[in-house]
């Protein structure tokens, strides 16, 4: 197991992402943050808090469960049965710029599923993808608008993002 990002670096990346989201979005547009379960959700909460502070207005945050939109339900890739959880988005997504947040962007399939799920809930003005780690290995033509840390890791390995709220500490490791 190798640590590639420690908690200080993660904090800096999130600050950086916050700044780039603000400068990349016209001030008259409404922003909302939606995290993809389950670690994307935690990152989304942190981002929306920082964005709200810096913009001086409330940037709402929601959680998206993409289990029903996965493309591997009928051809499972492993032995785990995905658990269907709830999607909790307590605001209207129409006409807002939605910052979709996930921990790792790798094949792009989760992001594709998230976009399909979001479109079934309304019509955002724009969807932008923000990720902590951008890993080489896309299987779909999908890119992050705001990527924190870029890395190229051998296919058999796992890039694991651990966060205080779910795993006790902030760090990104390769296993």
């Amino acid at each position, binding site marked *: 197991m190798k640590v590639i990002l420690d908690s200080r670096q993660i904090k800096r990346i999130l600050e950086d992402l916050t700044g780039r989201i603000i400068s990349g979005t016209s001030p008259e547009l409404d922003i909302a943050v939606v995290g993809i379960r389950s670690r994307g959700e935690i990152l989304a909460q942190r981002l929306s808090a920082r964005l709200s502070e810096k913009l001086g207005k409330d940037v709402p945050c929601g959680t998206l469960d993409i289990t029903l*939109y996965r493309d591997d339900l009928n051809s*499972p890739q492993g032995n785990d*049965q995905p658990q269907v*959880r709830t999607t909790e988005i307590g605001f209207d997504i129409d006409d807002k710029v939605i910052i979709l947040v996930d921990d790792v962007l790798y094949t792009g399939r989760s992001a594709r599923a998230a976009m399909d799920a979001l479109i079934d809930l309304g019509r955002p003005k724009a969807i932008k993808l923000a990720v902590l780690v951008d890993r080489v290995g896309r299987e779909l033509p999908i890119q992050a608008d705001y990527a924190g840390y870029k890395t190229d890791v051998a296919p058999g390995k796992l890039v694991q993002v651990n966060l205080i709220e779910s795993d006790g500490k902030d760090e990104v490791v390769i296993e």
Partner: protein
Amino acid sequence: MLGLHELSAEEITHILDTAKGFEQISTRSVKKAPPLRGKVVVNLFFEDSTRTRNSFALAASRLSADVIEFTEKVSSVSKGETLLDTAKNLEAMGIDIVVIRHSAGGVPRLLSRNINACVVNAGDGFCEHPTQGLLDVYTIRKIKGTLEGLKIAIVGDIAHSRVARSDMWAMSKLGAEVIFVGPPTLIPGQVDKLPVKVSYCLDEVIEKVDVINMLRIQFERLGGNPFPSVREYSHYFGLTVERMKKAKPDILVMHPGPINRGLEMESEVADGSNSVILEQVKNGLAVRMAVLFLVNQAAAQGE
């Protein structure tokens, strides 16, 4: 999904937790999600049904599956075609899930041994009605938080009720105390072997219970005269406004439907503030989506 008797408390809880994730699909504007896209679900119904049948059809459509409706009355069963032939012929056309309701207990199991498609029991004879049991406990859990320690009365024709049996399994496994209430003629003979208490007097039980589930007097199944008259049955076992005065103020009043208004319960009770009957129907949709999803998942993993 053949019955709740063979499921563990963890498995039942998993189904309920999964159902929670499906509730939203029915309330948002786009009432569809893709997990069963391209799959075919057959509603193989050999008995009449309003709720169960339409609930399964809607649940399947919401998951993007295609639905075939089979009704015995207008099928070739009238020409003598057997159940297994019917099922195998449909299977030859390419189907994935069969939802079956039949008047003979054990038919779903028989079917599951003879076809490759998944089988979901929508009610077999007096045996089980698992999705009704699941939606009943889901409704209770949603409002009360948990079934642990709750006292639940199931009132009526217990002997002929598959709903009572499925409810009993689900509720007792999740920690509730179940009490069967009815005239001795409608309580099954070997009830002492089941995880329930029995009472022949509704008035004694009504003040103690947190949930009361009224069963329909199924005139089509009774055969013989289990009670002297419908009026006498209502007098002793009907849920009247008077009886409700003795009940806990937050008691949940349930009924699987369809209601014989005035018989099992007075209209004022059925439409009253303690009644969660329509909630049950609403939750039935989420529960059936969860069951179809999980059954499909299990089949995909098994391949």
